[in-house]
């Protein structure tokens, strides 16, 4: 068998589609069986332009001029199946004849798998987005009922162990004359008012590094110092207290309903824990809470009281003054005010 015959036999038996075209007229000279099975209508001497009308002949010529190959992709249907074929055109010299060699590789399966992976990725991404959204909602809800440190512990371990915090400051705020508001305001108005007030307190607390513990009807409690690295807890709570009072005073000048509050501050230790298995409530109890509750009970309207002996180190713009009642002073309390 001659070399030419062997070459032709090889071209016919390879798994890729191969066709040869003349360089001058771009006419089909030879095609192997694979090529013919894909392009059954191809006839001898058929020009490239009619065989592949979408082929960019100018781009192919440009590639040849730069002495490189030209590659493109062809998509067509055989029966109901879409075939995707990668085509590579190469100009080559054989003896005294210049030929264009066309190699065609069936990449249908690759494209099908790419489509499937794209579809699957979209599904997974959509699910991941939904999970992230739900996770954020859950986190938001849990952060409403417990401080971030407790939430982080719950997230990592599934439980929140009771912790003693030896040095924290607690603020307890109570609205004066609350029963009267409950009896006179429509429920929707009352809830709307509380919502606005507590939301404002939350913002102030967040800003100053305090964390709301809970609200119960007419009271609002927040705490600072639960984080181990927070040594300025009294500063934070004192600043929050004066801003709460300032906010209410300003709001009262323009709002239909006016509110007075009494605030007690306590420092010392507390125990914090999540209570309950099904319905979680984060609670803190202990010395600091008791002191704050006692101070609040003796505070007058818009007055902030704390034990005088706990107020040695206050922020620059906050100072102490006489309490509004003798009972408070007798109990060792001092009032805080903005300078």
């Amino acid at each position, binding site marked *: 068998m001659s070399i030419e015959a062997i070459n032709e036999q090889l071209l016919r038996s390879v798994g890729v589609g191969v066709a040869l075209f003349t360089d001058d007229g771009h006419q089909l000279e030879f095609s192997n069986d694979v090529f013919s099975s894909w392009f059954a209508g191809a006839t001898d001497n058929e020009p490239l332009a009619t065989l592949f009308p979408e082929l960019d002949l100018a781009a192919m010529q440009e590639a040849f001029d730069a002495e490189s190959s030209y590659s493109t992709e062809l998509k067509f249907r055989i029966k*109901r199946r*879409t075939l995707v074929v990668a085509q590579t055109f190469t100009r080559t010299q054989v003896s005294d004849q210049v030929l264009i060699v066309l190699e065609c590789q069936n990449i249908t399966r690759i494209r*099908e*798998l790419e*489509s499937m*992976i794209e*579809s*699957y990725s979209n*599904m997974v991404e959509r699910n991941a987005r939904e999970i992230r959204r739900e996770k954020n909602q859950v986190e938001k809800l849990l952060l409403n009922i417990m401080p971030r440190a407790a939430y982080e512990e719950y997230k990592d371990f599934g439980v929140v162990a009771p912790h003693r915090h030896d040095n924290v400051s607690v603020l307890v705020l109570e609205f004066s004359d609350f029963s009267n508001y409950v009896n006179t305001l429509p429920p929707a108005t009352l809830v709307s008012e509380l919502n606005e007030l507590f939301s404002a307190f939350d913002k102030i607390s967040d800003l100053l590094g305090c964390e709301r513990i809970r609200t119960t009807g007419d009271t609002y409690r927040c705490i600072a110092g639960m984080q181990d690295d927070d040594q300025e807890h009294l500063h934070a709570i004192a600043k929050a207290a004066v801003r709460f009072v300032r906010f209410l005073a300003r709001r009262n000048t323009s709002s239909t309903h006016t509110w007075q509050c009494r605030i007690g501050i306590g420092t010392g230790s507390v125990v914090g824990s999540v209570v309950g298995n099904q319905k979680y409530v984060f609670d803190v109890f202990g010395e600091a809470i008791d002191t704050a509750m006692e101070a609040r009970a003796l505070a007058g309207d818009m007055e902030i009281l704390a034990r005088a002996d706990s107020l040695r180190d206050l922020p620059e713009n906050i100072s102490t003054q006489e309490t509004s009642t003798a009972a408070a002073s007798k109990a060792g309390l001092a009032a805080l005010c903005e300078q």
Partner: protein
Amino acid sequence: MDLYEKYGGFGNINKIVMAFYDTLLDSEEIGPYFDDIEMGRLIDHQTKFVASLLGGPASFSNEQLRRAHENLNITPDHFDEMKSVLSDTLVAHGMSIEDAELVMAEIETRRSVIVTKEFS
């Protein structure tokens, strides 16, 4: 554990989807339904369909299925043929007969939204 995880997640399900796709396209009975459907769309549909049947990261509501099939005039015979092809494909890819029957029961609950024509 859902069937999707039990049978190897996407790493194995993709083989099921491709085999299902190949068999459907070659079927003389139901292949013609896919004559004019673009490859990417068909694969997307079947990936989601198989994943949702096995409990994977996709869900098709009945309304989505109804919309996807409403103009295809699918007959009960063709629906049965599709079930048969999928069941064979699942078993051929290692699914137990019992689990394949569970999947068939899942598909059966969607018969009324997929079959839109009474007779062939």
